[in-house]
């Protein structure tokens, strides 16, 4: 079942997809997102502050993520940090992107472009 609202967002820009993945397991602030992406990719993807917040601005407008009004970490003393959470719509978009990539990978395997699993 394809949703035109979701389809219009695909394919996702790399930064956006990485941010969605970073927010999948827990709510994070900007620096934490950046660190998570760097850690997961072994330092291959380094989000700069400009790219990160430009993406966040767009993702908020598109309804992929939400900003939390309160810090999820009660022990945090830094009131200035802003935290973001993956929205339900964001989760669906990420799933659609994964499906799209999956289909692509399967096609590549079927034609023998890459060895099958």
């Amino acid at each position: 079942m394809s949703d035109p609202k979701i389809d219009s967002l695909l394919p996702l820009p790399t930064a956006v997809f990485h941010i969605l993945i970073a927010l999948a397991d827990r709510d994070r602030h900007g620096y934490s997102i950046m660190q998570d992406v760097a850690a997961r990719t072994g330092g291959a993807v380094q989000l700069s502050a400009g790219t990160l917040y430009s993406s966040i601005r767009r993702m908020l407008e598109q309804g992929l993520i939400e900003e939390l009004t309160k810090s999820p970490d009660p022990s945090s003393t830094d009131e200035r940090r802003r935290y973001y959470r993956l929205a339900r719509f964001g989760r669906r978009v990420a799933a659609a992107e994964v499906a799209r990539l999956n289909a692509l990978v399967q096609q590549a395997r079927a034609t023998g472009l890459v060895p099958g699993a």
Partner: protein
Amino acid sequence: MRRAKAVYRTLLYGYPAPFRHEYGQQMCLMFAEQLSEARRTRAWRNETALWLHAARDLFTVAPREHWHVISQDLRYALRTMAVKPAFTTVAILSLAVGIGANTAIFSVWNGVLYAPLPGVHRPEGLVLVTDPGASGMLRGRMSGARRWLSYAEFERLRDHATGFSGLMASQSRLNTWQVRVDGGEPEETSGRLVSGGFFAVLGVHPAIGRLFTTTEDRGEPAFAVVSHAYWQRRFDGRPDVLGKTLIVRDTPVSIIGVTPAGFAGETSGQQPDLWLPLRLQPRVLPGGDWLHEKLPDLVMWLHAFGRLKPGITYAQAEAQANAVFRAGLGSFYGTERQDEVLDQRLRLQPGARGASASRDELSSSLTMLLASAGLLLLITCANLANLLLARGAARHPEIAVRVALGANRQRLLRQLVTESLALATMGGIAAIAIAYGMHGALVRMLQEAEPRFSMGFAFTLPVLVFVLAATLMAALVFGALPAWHVTRIDPGSRLKDSSRGTIGSASELRSGRWLVGAQLALSLPLLVGAGLLVRTVDNLQRPHLGFDAERLLLARVDLGAIVQDTARRDRVLRELLGRIQRIPGVEAASFSQLGLFSGGLSTAGIEVSGSAPTATGGRDSALDRVGADYFTTLRIPILRGRDISESDRADTHRVCIVNEMFVREHFGGRDPLGMRVTTVDDGVRTTYEVVGVVGDARTQSVRDDVEPRFFVPAEQRPSSGTSRTFLIRTASRAGSVIPAVRDAMDGVDARLSSSDLDPASIEEHMAPLTADERTIARLAVVFGTVALTLAAIGLYGVLSYGITRRSSEIAIRMALGAHSRGIIAMILRETAGLLVAGLLVGSALAYVGSRMIASRLYGVAPQDPLTLTLATGVLLFVALIATYLPARRASRVDPMTALHQV
């Protein structure tokens, strides 16, 4: 660390403000953490990478964010515009007309005054040897800087002036020929004679066929090159145009090539249909052979353009050219008379803009038009600002809510500016279409004054820049004030206001009144200018001519070659005059060499009996050669003595008649009858006895003062000019005798036919002299009316708006016993200050403006009190009506209804 953070914060100013406000702090935090991480691990490479990323973001992410904000504002602006289609349409249309009119005038102004020749290769490399403003020809002798060259002078320069890499000549006047194409009917076609090097010097390559080369400077090459426009118009752009035959004054020429599109030749403001080789002159132009000259007269009729050799300066080229030129003068006039002619010289000047007969003529008119159109645009913008203020007031609740909800004021301002820009841009785009249409109309109007003027609309870089600048300026002028007001809104008070049904603030109302005051002030100079110009045209159309211009037909006759045979010429003229005088319906007739308002000029060096020659040697006076009964026919009063008569023949006692100016200038207070006037030409002295004094008459220029002039019997003073103009006073309409005059030409001489006759009424001769003024006056009236209307609408709008705001106050006053007349008086009183201020500033502007157009006026002073009073009166009258209508409405407010609404 602190310094690094400060630098990064500065970098953030590259992002749009809304983004910076939202995320700037987070970005700084993140950057600080990344930086301290990098420093902690002492990885200087990471630190460098961090800075590089920050810099890269500035050039990739920041512009994207800017575009995001702009597109958002734009979408919002378009939505707002779509909600109020009537307002949007009025705004865009008024801007389009305002900017369009300015653009059309600018494109002609720029084209005439500053634009380089279109379609010419490297126009800035062209130099002009002659006077670019001169058009026509002169037979005789010139002193000072040469306006034109003779054919022989051009050939000498072309062959011997070494400073030029190329030199070409072109006929300064544009001809109108009756050309027959392939043996068809004669068609009016414009064209000009040019030398073989014409196209090569201009750097033009043919669209098809070939262009003239230096071989066309030899023999009588019967070829023609046609313009791209003529090719398209007359031959539908078919390639078989090559080889077709055109018949120009009985001479067949075949078309050898077509110039490229956009090329119009060396004269700005003219678009010839065809070019013929100079060598064809004796066959295609009347008036004898101008290629071979003989003493005593040179025939000067050519412009010469060249390009300098590399490394040669203007001064060097000018010196070399003058050396060749003077040697030529010496060999023409003979060395013993060199002293008399050596005051002649050539002056080189830049030729990029080409020659132009109309540049001087049109420049002041166009500059004046451009200034008034600019003023009109300002008034339009003021009006639009007023509309926006009113609309801004209506939007206050919306904006107050947004401000209360935390919208950033800077953001609001940005949005409003975007709205103004979007409006202005749409107006600007529509203006281009309007400019295109207006350009054509303007050129047609200018053609009434300059019949050969022609200029297509070219969307060149200067025009584009002008449209952009005008659009931006308009947006700034009409958008700034309303935007400023909207952003000063205090959300609390506004929300309360709107719930009470009051709209607009006192300060907005004040701004609105200021704008209306400005509109009134700007309208006055336009009205005064229009008034002065209308009076000028009126004066020019009823000038004190000094002769009777009623029912007068002028018939120019080209005598061609028979002019050389004086006996035959005199017999023909006598015979023709007799026949014309005998035509039924002709009351009187005579002829003269110059005719009336022909632009002709004839002067002679003179000595007057009884007064010593002046220190400079001699004096000059204008003269004309006239036929019998000249003054009686024109009804110029004969103050003393007699008219020229039949019996003043070549072999009788030489006589002359002088005008009053001549008496004043050359005889002082003495009685001139019986005195002698001696003309001195090239050492030949001829003496005439004064037999009459006549009143001063304007026979050549409507504007200028009458010159001292003397008149000699045509037969007593030979002239090499080939045309004479018959002056025919008719009993009824002047045109009614034209067929009979044509019949009179038949059989008078074997070499003459009625096709050598060019009849036209005196009105037709005089119309072009005042066409320029009439065009300007007409446009000024249109501009003045539009300005006045806009000012009236603005005044009406502001007052209506103010009265609506104050309806409760008015209702209370009336409930307390105020009369409706009292309410009207109160509103009129309140407007009086505005009117007085507007009129005072307007008068000052009108004073400055009228001084600027002083040179255009005739018979009316720039500070003419009557015109100023009338213009002020009209403005005041319209303003009072615009005030009275809303005031009356206010006075009819029913107090109960109004108070219930509160």
